[in-house]
């Protein structure tokens, strides 16, 4: 597999930022929160604020990797009647608004229920770039890997501080786009202090792959984003943006995003190791 293919759409956007001497910023918001239209507006505000890659959450009834902020937001979305097809149309609307790569973060069952190949086809047609799959490991992912390859979608699997080197090698070999490194042992949610597990994990991932590495879980402000951008290729922010949308609407999202975007541009920054 050539490097260009493995970089995928999200990887190209991340490397573009890295080539400009900065870290990339990846922002997450769930579809359908606080309402269908409100969700679309929130995601557009992420883009206006300067994210390099967008991560749209597909709300799910049993989100075991999420802390309370994202749980509550996705509960609101589902209580509002959000359907999988509405997530796809959210992707379509945002894709019409901007060229920023759009990833969907989804627990596995909604995709399996929709039909893996059918989901990949409809998602690609809507303008989606790929999936982040927090409860699907490559070991169980043959059907998704085949569909992603067929429709040229990014496949972002997660690595964790607890992952063995062998698992990191196997997982990164199955990724396209970037590798999602979870910085803490724990669920999503803003944290006061940065994790000291993240930098060693990124170093281990970098010794296994030339793909960009994004670090997520716990980042909530520009200072923390700057700290992560010093050793990772991309900083991933979720719960803090959900909170900003909840408290300040799209304007709040835009303001926080701008602060985060400033953070990933701070000097000095370690050059990307390829």
């Amino acid at each position, binding site marked *: 597999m050539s490097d260009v293919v493995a970089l995928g759409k999200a990887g190209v956007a991340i490397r573009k930022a890295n080539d400009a001497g900065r870290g990339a910023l990846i922002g997450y918001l769930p579809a359908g929160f606080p309402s269908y239209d409100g969700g679309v507006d929130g995601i557009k505000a992420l883009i206006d604020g300067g994210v390099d890659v967008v991560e749209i959450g597909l709300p*799910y*009834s*049993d*989100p*075991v*990797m999420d*802390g*309370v902020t994202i*749980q*509550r937001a996705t*509960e609101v979305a*589902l209580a509002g009647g959000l*359907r*999988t097809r509405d997530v796809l149309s959210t992707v379509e609307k945002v894709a019409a608004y901007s060229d920023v790569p759009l990833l969907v973060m989804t627990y*596995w*069952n*909604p*995709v*399996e*229920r*929709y039909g893996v190949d059918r989901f990949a086809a409809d998602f690609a047609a809507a303008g989606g770039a790929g999936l982040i799959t*927090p*409860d*699907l*490991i490559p*070991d*169980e992912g043959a059907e998704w890997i085949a569909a992603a390859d067929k429709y040229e979608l990014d496949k972002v*699997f*997660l*690595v*964790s*501080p*607890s*992952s*063995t080197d062998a*698992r990191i090698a196997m*997982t990164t070999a199955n990724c396209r786009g970037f590798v999602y490194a*979870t910085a*803490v*042992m*724990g*669920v999503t949610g803003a944290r006061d202090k940065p994790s000291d597990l993240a930098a060693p994990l990124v170093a281990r991932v970098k010794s296994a792959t030339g793909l960009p590495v994004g670090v997520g879980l716990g980042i909530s402000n520009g200072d923390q984003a700057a700290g992560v951008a010093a050793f990772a290729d991309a900083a991933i922010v979720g719960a803090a943006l959900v909170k900003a949308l909840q408290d300040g609407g799209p304007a709040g999202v835009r303001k926080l995003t701008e602060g985060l975007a400033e953070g990933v541009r701070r000097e000095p920054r370690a050059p990307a190791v390829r």
Partner: protein
Amino acid sequence: MSTVLPDQFGHFGRFGGRFMPEALIAPLDELTQAWREAMADPEFTGEFERMLREYIGAPSLLYDATRLSDVAGSRILLKREDLNHTGAHKIRNAIGQALLTKRMGKPRVIAETGAGQHGVATATACAYLGLECVVYMGEVDTERQALNVARMRLLGAEVISVKTGSRTLKDAINEALRDWVASVDKTHYILGTAAGSHPFPAMVRDFVRGIGDEAREQSLALLGKLPDAAVASVGGGSNAIGLFTAFIGDDEVKLYGIEPGGDGFETGRHAATITAGQVGVLHGARSFLLQDEDGQTIESHSISAGLDYPGVGPEHAWLADTGRATYRPITDAEAMEAFRLLSKTEGIIPAIESAHAVAGALDIAKELGPEATILVNLSGRGDKDMDTAATWFGLGGSDE
């Protein structure tokens, strides 16, 4: 046959596996290894058997229920798991995993509970072995089962009321998993049924299979042959797999899993996962589950809190798929009739979960006739259910 599955990745045919965050994969691998080594170590298995014997009261009796048999039309044998310490089969799994926790050197245990039976069993095992214990319980259930909350607290456990999602068992599992992702280096998660991610379905089976192993021996001693059928209720599937495992290779023994039919299949208010669910992924494994068109989990309904779960262990999905076991629903009303019948004919008040199995056996007796012997897993006792029964039958205090 029974020892071949799951494969090394935890697959029972197309079911099972590991649909879990990567953060838990290495810990699950370590757990798998620790469990395999423990089961091959006579010191561990000897200690487990000693605890079953001296602390739990195993082997539980096999009881020839003659008066119930007269009504049923077949000979009914009851495997008296209700006589175990803490009143249900659940304690077998709880002490097995608690002993394994000690062996792994972890000081802390977490568990989920619905009705509180598994929570009480785990709190008991932790008190017995000196482990710290935290039990997650949906807020709705802490209100419905206040007595069991008090029991767990008395036993020294911390009970955390879960206020997200549907605030019931499935959300308690979600919250326990969230705790575990953050605490796994010092904490073992004692899952309460034969479901979830590999190795849980196979490991829990190892700890509860004594039910069937004992019953098989006891049946041979009593009858000189095996029973014609073995019947158990199915929530997540532990008491049923505990009974079935010993008989899976005995083709002449029909296996029946009784699912909670709630208000009836037509009403949509039930928890009959295999009968009415579709294949999907929940809580770490592929199996049957109650889900909507979009793969969102649907809330289940059963008068029995212990059966009120929208998923089911993957081995049952596989046994259903291959036809080795048959799964059928029993409604709340049918279960409560059997609850009363067993109380009146035998002086045994069953758990409502177990009453589902008794009701299923009454139907199966009609099909198999007077020559047949039916083994029923009486998985627990009914003390915990007396409020429900008093309301259902109008057994109030005043004599009008």
